[in-house]
């Protein structure tokens, strides 16, 4: 093998850090099982931004996004046939700011990492204190999805 390769592989590791940092808490499938354990899910296309599934239990499962103060939050809502919220799960939290990448101390986390390292684990920034982020929009989003149920899903 060419001796230049290891150098080439090591360098891009620090450059492939995405500008926006996403923290994935649950996949859609995990959120489905968390809210409706053991059920099966059938996607329903409403031609809208929200992703909607009919649950084998007769309930509904919707994935939507809201904008917080500086961040995009993906969440899932379970709704029962009476139109009541069964539960909410946060799936993903994405910071719109990418400035962290410029911070030397943060970049130092990548020192010594190569393409062989599982860098996706370091995609997010952990343990940030300060600048309270707002989740009030999640509450507003849930209200909107409950109305969506009344207007589009209840009669289905």
């Amino acid at each position, binding site marked *: 093998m060419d001796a230049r390769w290891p150098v080439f592989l090591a360098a891009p590791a620090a450059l492939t850090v995405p500008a926006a940092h996403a923290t994935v808490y649950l996949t859609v499938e995990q959120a489905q099982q968390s809210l409706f354990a053991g059920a099966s899910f059938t996607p329903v296309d409403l031609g809208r931004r929200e992703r909607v599934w009919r649950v084998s239990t007769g309930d509904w499962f919707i994935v939507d996004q809201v904008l917080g103060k500086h961040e995009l*939050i993906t969440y899932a809502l379970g709704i029962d046939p009476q139109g009541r919220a069964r539960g909410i799960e946060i799936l993903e939290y994405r910071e719109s700011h990418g400035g962290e990448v410029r911070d030397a*101390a*943060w970049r130092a986390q990548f020192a010594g990492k190569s393409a062989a390292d599982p860098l996706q684990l370091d995609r997010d920034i952990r*343990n*940030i204190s300060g600048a309270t982020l707002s989740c009030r929009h999640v509450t507003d989003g849930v209200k909107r999805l409950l109305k969506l149920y009344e207007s589009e899903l209840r009669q289905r």
Partner: protein
Amino acid sequence: MRANCASARRARALLGTLVEIRVPASAQGERAVQRAFAAVERVHRAMSAQESTSDIARLRGGRWYALDPWTRWVVDRAEEVRIGTDGLFDCAACGYALDGIAKGFAVDRAVDALQSAGIRAGVVNAGGDLRVFGDAFEEVYVRPPQHPDRLIYIGRVRDAAVATSAAMLLVDPRPARRALRAAGATVIAADCITADALTKPCLLEPEQARQLAGRFCAHALVLGTHG
């Protein structure tokens, strides 16, 4: 808990923010996290200023009975901090809004729930009020309130709580209010309720921050108004 360990991270929208819990991945961990969120929900129900049925409404009405014992505990702790900071921290002055302390308390209760479920290490972060428990060090960053696009690395902590408050969100309990000379204050303490409460006095009197925090065996970092 090392960064390369498999961990379970869960988040809920509670207390007006995103509450995140991270523990080592295990079936036992998932159950413990549910119990920890249940503790945060109890604090949310009892101490949220937004919920008309909360204990805050009772306190404002002078009804000191039928409070959640946790609320009573928080009010007592708030009084200790008020005395220890010469009145710089005062919930009563803000109509018993326990916002300045309830989030830190919720983090402590979540950590208690995790530990009593046998979880030995983890992190609970309620929108910037965080607590690290267990043997391992965790790196902690502060997001300066006036520069949300930046992060300041403050170091590694173990078995400690870190809380940050921004000046723009602060109510000054003193009759003669002065312009604030600090933009944000970060406090590192043994528990999160203390860290959370102390950020406010440290913002009001940045020159005394070290001494005020020292009375509670805590450390304070003050962020200037010029970044």
